[in-house]
């Protein structure tokens, strides 16, 4: 087994002391919240640091919190040599969610970021091909936002049952 979550958080905090906003090492799924601006540097650090070696990005997902008026983007990192993991969250404003892409760090981030863009409308700056991946190209709106309203028709095909 690799490092404990608290140790991983400590290593990250040493490097990015003033960018870690929140840390929960004893939660069921331990996570850290960092400033959106440092996500690419943090990703390079997590991948290349010999103690961490997070060589696998298992998931990027997003959650909409309309009551706090934020969208959270969650990065799940795994280390196959060290067999430990880390969850990093960034909190973005709901009206203009923008964050730097990590596509250059892990290639797999390409499609994950496109999915988060497609369903939640988070813009990943620097992404080479940020287009919808699941919905059709001319789809309107971001379906996983809480205030999303289903379209009545799509391309002339009715979408509601009366």
């Amino acid at each position, binding site marked *: 087994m690799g490092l404990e979550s608290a140790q991983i958080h400590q290593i990250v905090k040493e490097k990015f002391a003033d960018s870690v906003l929140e840390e929960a090492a004893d939660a069921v799924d331990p996570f850290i919240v960092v400033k959106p601006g440092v996500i690419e540097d943090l990703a390079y650090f997590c991948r290349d640091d010999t103690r961490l070696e997070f060589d696998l990005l298992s998931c990027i997902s997003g959650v909409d919190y309309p009551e706090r008026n934020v969208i959270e983007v969650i990065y799940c990192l795994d280390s196959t040599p060290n067999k430990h993991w880390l969850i990093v969250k960034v909190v973005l404003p709901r009206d203009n969610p923008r964050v730097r892409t990590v596509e250059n760090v892990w290639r797999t981030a390409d499609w994950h970021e496109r999915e988060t863009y497609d369903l939640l409308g988070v813009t990943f700056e620097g992404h080479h091909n940020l287009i919808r991946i699941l919905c059709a190209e001319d789809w309107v709106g971001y379906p996983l936002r809480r205030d999303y309203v289903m379209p009545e028709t799509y391309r002339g095909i*009715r*979408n509601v049952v009366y």
Partner: protein
Amino acid sequence: MSPENLTPDPLVKNLVFMNSVDYLVNLTRSNSVWPLTFGLACCAIEMMATGASKYDIARFGSEAFRATPRQADLMIVAGTVTHKMAPRVKRLYDQMPEPKYVIAMGGCVIRGGPYVKYGYHVVKGVDLVVPVDVYVPGCPPRPEALLEALFKVQKLMRREKILDRTRKTTKPEVYRPAAPQAV
């Protein structure tokens, strides 16, 4: 084949000569229905089971699943039709030669199934896109149910007239429901 399958349909009794031609043609066509290899979701697993040895759709002459719509005369829509897929379904249907038949297999295809209320991406019934001849309810339907649907399609085929290849008289229409009136 059971004996009642061989008796001509009572609807076609007028034309003595064409009747027997129709009867022969329909007998051959209905016993070699070629379905389109077309699975969209989990119902396709049951469709594959129907084609495999245990349920063996080959007993009824439909084992030749064609990989191109141009050689198929039956489309089994097996699985959830999304709005992104609907234009492709329509195009495949248009590419099939007349006379052609459609089986709507499973709840999603009939009226949206579990996605009927909150599934923003699911077409609420494939009959909004293409005309459907036989509906098979179930989630997914058992292979026996799909075989029963095939028999219903064969029954429809035996009513065909050779002079009416586009099925003007027997083809169902695309479902165009009216919006509800304000009360």
